[in-house]
């Protein structure tokens, strides 16, 4: 275990800040050369990083509430300040605040099916949801894992453009992308719609949603 005065100070600050606030904390396994104080300080300067500490070969990051830190940003700092160290992305434990970003290259509706099928084959994935999306195929999703699971266990993690640590989506449900279908007052499900149609004697208009 390599403890320097700087690390000790940062560890203490991290411990204090953990008791004072509740930003998400992520542990990032580091392989190769140990991180220098300089590299650690550079990581702590990243926007959204509230505190950073090194314990053996695990880098602990606390993210400022409502901010986000991407794994690729941390990797970029390592490349510059600690080129002999490597962040083992696949060894990161999936937590409540681990957000996966991918560039599906197709629309959300086209990406959702295959993504869901892939995730359903992972026994530890109990649930998943898209939490945000952007233009041209980029989307973010999170999963709920049963027990401890690492990003590597998802397999093919190269498909993920980035991993984001943030509490920004906490408490938010998945965005309802069907809102977009233009102000139509969709009924919650087919049974409710059929009951209402029968009661009010209004015709139904049904739109298949196979997701193709």
């Amino acid at each position: 275990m390599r403890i320097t005065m700087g690390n000790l100070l940062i560890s203490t600050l991290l411990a204090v800040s953990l008791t004072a606030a509740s930003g998400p904390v992520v542990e990032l396994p580091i392989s190769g050369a140990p991180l220098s104080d300089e590299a650690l300080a550079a990581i702590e300067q990243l926007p959204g990083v509230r505190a950073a500490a090194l314990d053996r070969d695990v880098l602990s990051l606390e993210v400022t509430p409502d901010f986000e830190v991407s794994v690729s940003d941390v990797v970029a700092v390592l490349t510059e300040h600690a080129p002999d160290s490597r962040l083992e992305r696949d060894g990161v434990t999936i937590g409540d605040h681990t957000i996966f970003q991918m560039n599906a290259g197709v629309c959300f509706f086209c990406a959702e099916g295959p993504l869901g099928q892939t995730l359903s084959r992972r026994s530890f994935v109990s649930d998943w949801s898209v939490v945000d999306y952007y233009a041209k195929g980029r989307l973010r999703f999170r999963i709920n894992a049963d027990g401890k699971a690492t990003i590597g266990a998802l397999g093919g993690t190269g498909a993920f453009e980035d991993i984001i640590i943030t509490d920004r989506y906490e408490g938010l449900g998945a965005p309802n992308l069907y809102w977009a279908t233009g102000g139509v007052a969709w009924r919650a499900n087919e049974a409710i719609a059929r009951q209402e149609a029968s009661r009010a004697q209004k015709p139904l208009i049904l739109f298949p949603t196979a997701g193709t």
Partner: protein
Amino acid sequence: MRTGPFSDPVVVALINRYFVPVHLNNIDGSGIRYNMPPGHEDAYFILETPETADGPEVESITYGWSDGHDGPVAAENTHVLEPWFMKQEMLKFLGRHSQFDHEWPELARLKDATDPVSRLRLVELLLDEGAADQALALLDAMPGPLTRTAQARARALRQQKRWDEAAAALSSAPAGPATIIEEARIAFDRGDSNLAQEMLDAFLAHHPDHVDAAEAYYLRGWLYFRAGDDNAALEVWREGIARHPVTKSLFSQKAHLTLIRQNWSIDTVARSNTDEH
């Protein structure tokens, strides 16, 4: 710039007033429904009479197939996703099943009203359904200064694509944001991008939180898109959505849908000048 059947507020008004809309979940593996195996979406929309105890059999019409084709090819061939097609079929369906063609309650209530405010409200409700002929007949029968009815008249004439008359009608309207946005709509619809841009920029500079501002952002985004500035279009649409949440604004929903469609491929959103918004 077609963005699907819901891109036309008239289609949305007709659905919400006279139908019970629902997504048919055909992905749960429960079996073939409406001739579609689970996971398939060969039909684009289905109109169906409600079940009635001891009543006639349910009549169901599926739109989406054409001879020898299904799916996207059928949609292309039959125009099944065009707003005008859906509007036409909904009205035909209601006409064939007059027992289900209940008049929208507020329309029915206002029908016999004679005061100018109620008559003007009736005109607006009719225009929501695209009934421009009826609306214009009512406007013609209304006494009083043109200024009061100018915006509604311009809207009706715009729906009939009588651009010059619509613009002329608007010249009697009082100055203000409602007149500016109507002028922008007319210019946009007739393809006068320069004037539309001028009006929309003026509107958004002074009234970004106006009730019609979400529509202004939506149209402004399309002008950028037509000009090939995709990034500016996305930025304007996002700003409109941020100011006017999709839960509250039809046009933010439309912008939201457009953003999703951008994901499909920029080229799938037609750049045609002839498509309707």
